[in-house]
């Protein structure tokens, strides 16, 4: 039998590996990082000394449990760190890592590829000193550095408050927390957020802590312009439409998270539009099984629900895979995991309601604002592609003026490009179509 390949070693990938080993299988685990953990449970390089409580806060116990269990797997898995998957074909998976380029026969594929920040273009967002919100957390967690001396946090989502809190606790000066969501959005989402009272309480605690420590926190904000050659400040409009400027030498920007789905696309998995998350997502069953091709998905790469849900989904997808290979599966355990997933989904929908994606920023963005960071395609150029050139879907627009065609393959600009396309035509976001993935999904050396 061809070996199972797990891609990604965050909470979903680690849990999947543990479950497959329990089922008597020896999966290949491919991961880009030096050490397993993913982004949320990312471990600093050797020689760093902060304890898990300082790195992962309330999730320290869960992170440590997964790290230790995964490390203890030893050679019961074929673990390939510092290795990326750059292509998936019907009969092969192509890797690039310390051994150079490697072709694996394609066995059952379990994709746990995680998420990156969900972004919208802001005038000046490519300037040095602007980093993604998730990246700002990675800097502190994995390197012990702040992204600047005086840091502003702008965007929305639970991470906005968590990372601002972590920065302030670590001794950084937090210039402001500028949330694009209205305060009332959070209130209205409370019934859904009550699905996870502990998490809800933590979120309220971070907000209260920041306020109590004199950090300006504003709701209903619209960011306008990042100043300086490198960042010197941010102009923004408050909920009363007044102009404000926050002086800062760094800006953390992020509007929630988006699933990283390019490998699922290359693996031939069908997609469906998720109107809550405003993203085309792999069309999988409740256990993470794709309709064909022996492909399974788990974690934030399937739908963003956070670390605890990712671990549960990793176990569930691995059980589905094991069952499909004819291994005996504990159906009671599986049913318990399914029940937990329903609660995680309810909470995730609460977060989406509390922190809506402020897509109206695209309507007011200046023509000069860069939309695609890699190819330096402006919002104005995209407006031209849709208005004058008549690009009927987002892939046509990409062919005409290149947004999403650069090195990141649309990871940073793809959702904003689709939203802009749909808004220019007065249609809902699913009508823009879906930017198709192309190998190589990440750059590989030609030599």
């Amino acid at each position: 039998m061809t070996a199972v390949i797990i891609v990604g070693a965050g909470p979903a990938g680690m849990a999947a590996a543990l479950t497959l080993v329990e089922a008597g299988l020896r999966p290949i685990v491919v991961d880009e990082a030096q050490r397993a953990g993913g982004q949320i449970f990312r471990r600093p390089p050797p020689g760093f000394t902060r304890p898990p409580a300082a790195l992962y806060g309330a999730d320290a116990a869960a992170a440590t449990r997964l790290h230790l269990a995964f490390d203890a797997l030893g050679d019961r898995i074929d673990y390939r760190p510092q290795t990326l998957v750059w292509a998936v074909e019907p009969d092969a998976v192509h890797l690039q890592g310390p051994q150079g380029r490697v072709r694996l026969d394609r066995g059952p594929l379990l994709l746990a590829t995680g998420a990156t920040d969900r972004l919208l273009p802001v005038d000046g967002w490519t300037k040095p000193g602007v980093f993604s919100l998730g990246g700002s957390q990675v800097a502190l967690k994995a390197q012990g550095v702040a992204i600047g001396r005086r840091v502003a946090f702008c965007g929305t989502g639970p991470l906005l408050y968590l990372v601002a809190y972590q920065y302030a606790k670590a001794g950084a000066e937090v210039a402001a927390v500028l949330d694009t969501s209205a305060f009332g959005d959070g209130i209205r989402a409370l019934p859904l957020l009550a699905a996870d009272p502990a998490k809800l309480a933590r979120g309220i605690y971070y907000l209260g802590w920041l306020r109590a420590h004199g950090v300006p926190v504003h709701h209903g904000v619209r960011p306008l312009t990042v100043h300086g050659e490198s960042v010197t400040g941010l102009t923004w409009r408050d909920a009363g439409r007044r102009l404000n400027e926050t002086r800062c030498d760094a800006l953390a920007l992020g509007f929630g998270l988006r699933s990283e789905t390019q490998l699922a696309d290359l693996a031939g998995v069908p997609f469906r539009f998720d109107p809550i998350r405003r993203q085309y997502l792999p069309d999988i069953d409740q256990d993470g099984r794709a309709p064909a091709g022996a492909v399974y998905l788990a974690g934030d790469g399937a739908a963003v629900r956070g670390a605890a849900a990712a671990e549960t989904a990793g176990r569930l997808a691995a059980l589905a895979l094991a069952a499909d290979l004819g291994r005996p599966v504990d159906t009671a355990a599986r049913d318990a995991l399914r029940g937990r997933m329903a609660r995680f989904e309810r909470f995730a929908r609460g977060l989406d309601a509390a922190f809506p994606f402020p897509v109206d920023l695209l309507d007011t963005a200046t023509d000069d604002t860069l939309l695609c960071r890699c190819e330096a395609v402006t919002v104005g150029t995209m407006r031209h592609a849709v208005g004058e050139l008549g690009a009927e879907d987002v892939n046509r627009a990409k062919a005409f003026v290149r947004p999403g065609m650069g090195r990141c393959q649309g990871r940073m600009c793809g959702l904003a490009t689709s939203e802009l396309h749909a808004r220019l035509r007065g249609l809902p976001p699913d009508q823009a179509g879906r930017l198709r993935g192309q190998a190589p999904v990440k750059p590989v050396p030609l030599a």
Partner: protein
Amino acid sequence: MTGQFVRLAETERPEIGFTLDGMKLTALAGDTVLTAVLMQRRAVRRSEFGDGPRAGFCLMGACQDCWIGDVDGRRFRACSTLVTDGMALVTLP
């Protein structure tokens, strides 16, 4: 010159030496190339489309905005590569 990043923790690691466009600099063992560079400077490269300097963005290997090279012609993502003693980095044209 003042850098972009600021160290808040983990400052007891051993120092290592590297060069950036020929200039001798120091970093701490375990720094990524991006950390090592942004402790000294505010950018790692210029956009090939003429829209100005860039300093990376996602810090998790996804955005491809922090590519840098070395004197042997290798190219890599600064955020996903650890700096090593004696590394000779060159910013890309």
